[in-house]
């Protein structure tokens, strides 16, 4: 019940935001929402399924370029271009996940790193398609002849799509697929004994993660109006990981919280922007060392302290 109240009031606040906020703050909230989508996808792969991925930014980039090319070169409406971008990413995610399905830990990390670099090289070496290192301009999204030129309309566009993505992420996490992801992470042997096809589940997880990242990438391209290749390098991948680590691995609410907080962070540190990279690194390191359960874990502990007696059971992993 309490969760429902929180969600509804947040939605109400978000819907009312354009009445009070300047276009800059709307833009910031849009970025936070896009990052939330990314975080949810990465959480499914790394938090739930336990597969490390250093190339998340690449999938975002693939979705961004694909969506942009669909709208600019092929003249497709954004409601087709976005899913097309997501689907292309998903396919490539599966293409990476399939041969990598027997790898784990270090070797998996290296493979994803290699993929990240490979995508980067491809982006640079084919400027006829990607615009090369100079980037690509993207027009405002268009739907049924209506162009989202006004900042307010673009905001609602992103808001609605984000709510949809969050719902999908939440549904998948509590479905048999979410349980399978978790089983693969915690005990692949037990998972197999229960008939869960471990390798196939890993590929699905990779594919889903890529789909979310690709979708977010397409949205990003539409919101920013420009695709900048350095956006899709190792720095961004690490930022994405920071979202889910700080928020709490395995938790959707955590992923959203982490994404929102860390998108707002550079803004809050506007005066000292050169420090933002350093601060990111420190926050990531600090969270890993001292707060391995992230914000969600911290909240649970706080709950336990508040009710004056220790919780009879600790929060179940992957609790929404």
């Amino acid at each position: 019940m309490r969760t429902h109240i929180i969600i509804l009031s947040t939605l109400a606040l978000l819907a009312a935001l354009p009445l009070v906020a300047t276009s800059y703050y709307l833009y910031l909230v849009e970025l936070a929402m896009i990052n939330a989508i990314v975080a949810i996808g990465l959480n499914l792969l790394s938090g739930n399924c336990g597969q490390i991925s250093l190339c998340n930014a690449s999938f975002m980039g693939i979705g961004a370029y694909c969506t942009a090319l669909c709208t600019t070169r092929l003249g497709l409406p954004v409601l087709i271009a976005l899913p097309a971008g997501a689907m292309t990413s998903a396919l490539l995610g599966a293409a990476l996940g399939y041969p990598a399905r027997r790898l784990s830990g270090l070797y998996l990390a290296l493979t994803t790193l290699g993929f990240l670099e490979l995508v980067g090289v491809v982006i640079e070496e084919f400027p006829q398609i990607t615009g090369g290192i100079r980037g690509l301009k993207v027009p405002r999204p268009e739907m049924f002849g209506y162009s989202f030129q006004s900042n307010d309309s673009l905001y609602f566009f992103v808001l609605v799509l984000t709510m949809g993505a969050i719902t999908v992420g939440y549904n998948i996490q509590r479905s048999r697929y979410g349980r399978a992801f978790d089983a693969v992470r915690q005990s692949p042997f037990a998972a197999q004994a229960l008939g869960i096809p471990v390798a196939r589940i890993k590929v699905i997880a990779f594919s889903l993660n890529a789909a979310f990242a690709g979708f977010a990438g397409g949205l990003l391209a539409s919101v920013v109006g420009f695709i900048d290749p350095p956006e899709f390098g190792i720095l961004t991948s690490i930022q994405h990981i920071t979202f889910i680590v700080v928020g709490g691995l395995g938790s959707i609410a955590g992923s959203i919280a982490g994404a929102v907080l860390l998108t707002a962070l550079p803004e809050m540190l506007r005066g000292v922007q050169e420090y933002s990279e350093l601060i990111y690194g420190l926050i990531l390191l600090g969270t890993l060392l001292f707060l391995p359960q992230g914000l969600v874990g911290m909240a649970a502990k706080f709950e336990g302290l508040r009710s004056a007696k220790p919780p009879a059971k600790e929060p179940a992993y992957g609790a929404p």
Partner: protein
Amino acid sequence: MALLEINALSVRFGGVAAVTDLSLAISAGEIHGIIGPNGAGKTSLINAITGMVVPHSGSIRFSNKEIAGVAPHTISSFGLGRTFQHVELFADRSVFDNVLTGFFRHQSYGLFAAAIRFGKAAKSERRTQDLTRALLDAFDLAPLADTRAGLLPFGVQKRVDIARALAAEPKLLLLDEPVSGMSEAEAETAVATMRKLARDHGITLVVVEHNMRVLMNLAERVTVLNQGRLLASGTPAEMQADAAVIEAYLGDAV
């Protein structure tokens, strides 16, 4: 017709022969014990049957299907389940979720249905959750449903392991040292549960143990392994009296 038929099975690791030329037949509805001192090849045998390891030679037929070398999850889908000596629960999740996960292969909705939830997936989830609650009740685990599995005492974890394995509705359940680490009282309850499983649900049990006393009360037939080979096979009483078996076990609990 035997439910599980093993013929001339050999399992090797590098140069070491873990199991050599083993033949064994287990009938449907039977409670069969497999026993042997440490290093007898019990674990390798289980791993070969469940597909974790590819045998060097020989055949394993389950429900008249050849399963040697087949992928583990496929073997499970044929109706062969197992529990683990060291439990292997999903420690971070609740007991309820652990058992719920066991129903995976009996749910059939796809990814898109899961994403929408409405309709097919929701119905399947409701049904499976009801089944999970029933299973928890049957195993006296209902009050612990929301507890994190990793926090439970070992004996209780083993109970959850069995409940979870049953969710997959196996025709044959391989239990790997099911009472190791349990107290006397827990072991007795476990044995009673296993007997009930066989009798009431018609599940064939293959119990791998190194404690003969447990098998005395439970198994109808026992196969004794030693150094990867079949040493003797018969009723528990016969095995206890067998000279070769006693010699192999000199000093062990017989």
